[in-house]
């Protein structure tokens, strides 16, 4: 147990150092950092305004009220921003594989997956979390479902979603080693999960079934909000946890397999 705590504390220290380094790099190009932050903020706020504008005319979308739809969108934004914050390093992984620099990571006395996944946290996304959380709490109170039980349920499912997004990023890394293609895989992941900006019930079958059971976007993005609103069927609760566990274990297995196929080309 003590060994385990020591290990976690060690990795936390390493993560903190990586994060400070990565933030220093971002700050070395302030113009770019400011522009990217402004652009992300605009993207977030424009879509929110668009939703509000539409819902003022229609009153509901897919059977959900105005504040419920907004709550779904903010839940999506929360999960997406936390994932971006933690796993930005994945976007830089391809060059390590193509140039063979991944060798240096393999040689270090830390877990190579930990380094590849979390070695370059993007603290700029932390700024985005402030308006998201404020608006999330505001819309939650407006849904009339803001109770301690629902909030705990929401946080549990958010944690489950983050396990799934972690698994997806591990899969992207593993595919990156096997095929040297990372950029498009991770962008496709982002496009697929962006279908979760709206409640999944909005989509027609077979797209809805596809987004629930084949590419479990619904489980990642929609289930926490549904649980909070008390609209989650019990079978989907069980399916959500099973999916997260299976995909996470599967992603780790694929990662280990991919390491055996790493060719160290160009190094």
């Amino acid at each position: 147990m003590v060994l385990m705590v020591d290990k976690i504390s060690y990795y936390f220290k390493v993560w903190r150092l990586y994060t400070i380094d990565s933030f220093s790099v971002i700050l070395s190009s302030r113009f770019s950092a400011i522009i990217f932050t402004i652009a992300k903020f605009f993207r977030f706020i424009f879509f929110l305004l668009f939703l509000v504008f539409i819902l003022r005319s229609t009153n509901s979308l897919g059977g959900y009220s105005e504040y419920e739809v907004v709550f779904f969108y903010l839940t999506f934004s929360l999960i997406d921003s936390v994932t971006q914050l933690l796993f930005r390093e994945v976007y830089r992984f391809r060059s390590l594989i193509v140039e063979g620099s991944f060798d240096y990571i393999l040689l270090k006395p830390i877990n190579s997956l930990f380094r590849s996944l979390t070695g370059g946290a993007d603290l700029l996304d932390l700024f985005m979390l402030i308006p998201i959380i404020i608006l999330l709490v505001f819309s939650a109170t407006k849904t009339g479902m803001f109770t301690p039980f629902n909030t705990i349920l929401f946080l549990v499912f958010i944690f489950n979603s983050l396990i799934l997004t972690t698994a997806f990023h591990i899969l992207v890394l593993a595919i990156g080693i096997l095929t040297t293609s990372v950029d498009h895989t991770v962008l496709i992941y982002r496009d697929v999960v962006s279908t979760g900006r709206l409640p999944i019930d909005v989509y027609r079958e077979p797209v809805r079934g596809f987004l629930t059971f084949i590419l479990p976007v619904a489980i990642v993005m929609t289930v926490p909000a549904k649980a909070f609103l008390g609209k989650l069927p019990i079978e989907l609760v069980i399916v959500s946890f099973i999916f997260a566990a299976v995909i996470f274990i599967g992603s780790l297995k694929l990662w280990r397999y991919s390491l055996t196929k790493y060719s160290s080309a160009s190094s």
Partner: protein
Amino acid sequence: MRKYLLVAKNTWDEYMQYRLNFVMWRVRNVLRLIIVYFLWYAIFNQRGELFGYNESQILTYILLSSIVASIVFSTKTQDIGEEINSGNLSNLLIKPISVFKYWMARDLGDKLLNIAFSIVEVFVLIIFFKPPLFFQTNPIFIFLFILGIGFSLAIYFLISILIGFFGFWTPDVWGPRFLFYIFLEFFAGSLFPLDILPKPVFSTLQLLPFNYLLYFPVKIYLGQLSILSIFEGFFVGLVWIIVLYLFTNKVWFKGLKSYGAYGR
């Protein structure tokens, strides 16, 4: 002329070399289209008319704007900033070709490939989802629609290379382009027809060039603009093309003076 056609063909060949990347790019486009399509499908669920559109008009708008976006937004000019920063621009400057025509030829190859794929994708989606669609039969509107796309191509090309010219003064070329893409997403009309916005917002957007990239040509196709509004739109679009052309030229020559060919 032949050398530029060869450049366009080379661009096509480049894509064929990296087929997986291209297929993934098209998959992303289809996903984006599906999101917007279903959003509007849900909005119109059991409603006859909304914001002055009926269901067939809005779904036609979304599908057609996706095809027009494939024509207008597919470009190789996003590489210009990187070419300047890496010093590769020097390779073009010493060749007996016009750099602007070279980039136009690259765009031509890119657009032809994207148009072909986009038409097939939308066709498959139409067969799959069977949406109610509106077909324009008036040849005048069809002609003006094609002319409108011509304006869109010119405006987008000029703005895109102008953003690339940031590379003359800063290595951070992706930040401004990312911001531009965000504005495009919301103000060009791919997510929604701009005239559903409150009148003061819409009137302001009509003065910006983004409006002419998707919204304007698609609205012409739908036959929802009067001939007078169409010609007003063409006039403002033409003013934008002239202003952007003159400004782009000025920035290009100013940029060349500060170009240090670093990396070469």
